[in-house]
């Protein structure tokens, strides 16, 4: 079929529908999430004037800590086996470097996950993440090609999922991790419906 948008006028949907919709969706999106976005403190930081950031589930931190802990355990195990069983003393050097890096990653995780946020604006989705290296992306809903929801085995155990918003540009890279299952599905349905009404060509 054609790519013609159904709506010939560039006028967006009447705000009433959006307001009504987001009123119901907000509760789902914000259930069990962090409530304050973590931003860099410097005055030169990137910040939007207005809008409320939706954040991700607190369970995501637990999932990340557990999976990082697994990695750490494997590194330690491999290092110990090499050191004690095979008597390879050099294994200490890469082993310790990897352990320090993983521990440092785990130490900043609680701050990092608080910095992930997204805004559902009238015509686009804004996604932000990172504190030291800040990144903020705005994607018009109409550019959506597809929405992916994925969850690993650990994610499933905690009832969270990851949502990926795919456009024709590979660099867009909007991946929202750690949404609750309900939030991910609600967000997907919301994105599908708003994208449909704002559909444009490539």
């Amino acid at each position, binding site marked *: 079929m*054609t*790519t013609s948008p159904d709506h*010939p006028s560039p006028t967006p949907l009447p705000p009433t529908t959006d307001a009504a919709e987001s009123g119901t969706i907000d509760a789902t999106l914000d259930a069990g999430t962090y409530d304050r976005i973590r931003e860099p403190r410097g005055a030169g930081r990137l910040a939007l004037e207005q809008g409320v950031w939706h954040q991700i589930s607190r369970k995501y931190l637990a999932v990340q800590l557990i999976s990082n802990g697994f990695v750490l355990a494997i590194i330690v195990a491999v290092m110990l086996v090499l050191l004690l069983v095979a008597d390879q003393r050099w294994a200490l050097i890469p082993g310790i470097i990897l352990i320090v890096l993983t521990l440092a990653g785990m130490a900043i995780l609680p701050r990092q996950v608080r910095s992930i946020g997204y805004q559902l604006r009238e015509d686009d989705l804004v996604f932000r993440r990172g504190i030291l290296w800040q990144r903020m*992306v705005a994607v018009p809903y109409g550019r959506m090609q597809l929405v992916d929801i994925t969850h690993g085995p650990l994610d499933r155990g905690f009832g969270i999922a990851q949502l990926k918003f795919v456009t024709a*540009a590979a660099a867009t890279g909007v991946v929202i991790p750690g949404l609750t299952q309900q939030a991910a599905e609600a967000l997907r349905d919301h994105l599908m419906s708003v994208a449909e009404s704002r559909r444009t060509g*490539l």
Partner: protein
Amino acid sequence: MTDPVPNPPTADAGVSAPPAALVRSPLSDGEWHRLHPLTPLLRGGLALLVVLGIVVANMRDRLISIFVPAFAPDVPIDEWEEYEAAGDPIGWVLANNLVLIALLVTVGVLAVIIGAFYLSWRFHTFRITEDDVEVRSGILSRTQRRAPLDRVQGVNLTRPAVARLLGAAKLEIVGAGADANVKLEYLSTGNAETIRADILRLASGQRLAEQRAAAAAAGGARIAVADTVARGLTGLIEGDDADAAEPESVVRIPAGRLIGSQFASWGTVVILAGATALAIALSQGVFWVLFAYFPALLGFGAYWVRTIVRSLRYSIAPTRDGVRVTFGLLTTVSEILPPGRIHAVEITQSILWRGFGWWTVRINRMTGRSASDTTTDQFTTVLPVGTLADVERVLGLILPSVAEEERAAIVRDGVLGGSSAGGYVTTPRRARIVRPLSWRRNGLAITGDLLMLRRGLIWRMLAVLPLARLQSVALHQGPVSRALRVASLRAHTVSGPVLTAVAGIDRDDVIAAFERVAELAVSAAASDRSHRWAETTDAAEPVLSSPSPEQARFAVPGTSVPLPPPVGATELPPGAVPPPPYVPPRADDTAGEGR
């Protein structure tokens, strides 16, 4: 030929033939057709001939001794026997009296190969319907590929040297996505040209525009008459086959300049450096270098020559259905890019070209090829080398929405300029450490529906992005940038050679630009109609109460039943409840789009 009656718009849209008024080739009538009969020869048969040639060349002596014994090598017969016993298969066959069986096997294998080629040709069919182009191929495992015409990103016609001799050409319909192209290889050159014109005409939405006009006129008979008249008029104005006429190129690149530009390139520098290193090594008596690097140098040289040969005979010209870019000396490629398929444009000048005042123009676009296909580089260069005047003319073709004075401004402020003139927001003085040389020039501007990113003082480049094609926009900031209160802006488009980022812009300015770009990207895309480019000319005419092309398309001509207003048109004041009589259900909305 095609049936002379144009299809009523109410007919089954899936498989209906294109309206006769829009197609000129007998092959694009909605029926299945086969490709050029020489296709098997061109696609694989040549390899078979080469193999046969090698076999014959290797058996030359033997063939001579069999057929012309007088020229046989002067070898005693018993030595021949020895030679044969040493494992020569032909000798073995002769010695064991298996000539008949061997011949039968050879003929059988040949017959199977030829049969396979023939069958694959017979089973390889294509058709062009009102909405799609479809290709079926394969004998045992059948493949069927259908590409919607309104998603066409470009149509290119390639004529490899051998195929050119036989009057055949490859037609490739470029789709959006990896490995999304539909290839019709091979067609006769004439057919390929007219089919390309047909495909583009069907994709252009001219049919929809005409139907809309027809729907405005009352009565079926009048439509038919109007259609005939319109067709006659089109024929009068355009000539019988307007697209066959070779459009005049707007840019003329002398062959000398093309070759010169290639000489003044990094490739030459590499070759010269390599050759010098080789010469020094040889003079010092280090001969192993010769074996190690000479082949690489030779290969690079061949690549260098091929680049020149490929860009020779370059032309760029406007056609009704987009910009037509042609290049190549031996293998000619001519590609038509419909409007609105260009996602980013970059004007750059390599430092080696600075003295000559040469520039190159590259674009980001959907190539629709699989990642393994490496022949894409030329398809992204719309101007291999040209002066600023050439650049301006090319910009006029590939960004038709830009007015002429604006184009001049792009060149003056964007390409050459080095200050904040022309609305450029540049790197603040305090952050000049980020761009020590180019900080005065490094910047961005938003004009109308374009985003412009200007970079580089020594290596000047300007990226121009139509906001209607922009996929998303991002801001990045690291600790150093934060301390300097600056940030970088990256615009995301489909992948291509254009760099779409600019760093070190003042924090407040860049946030404002981010918001503005995000907003304009939405509005520009909503008002963009270039994917059905021929409609735009008729869009201004108040022919129907509902301007939506989809609705006009499904409307029955002659009946002026008012259609329900589209969802977007039901404008309500903020806070109001939608009126009860007509609440457009979302499900219907989705079904109407039909994705």
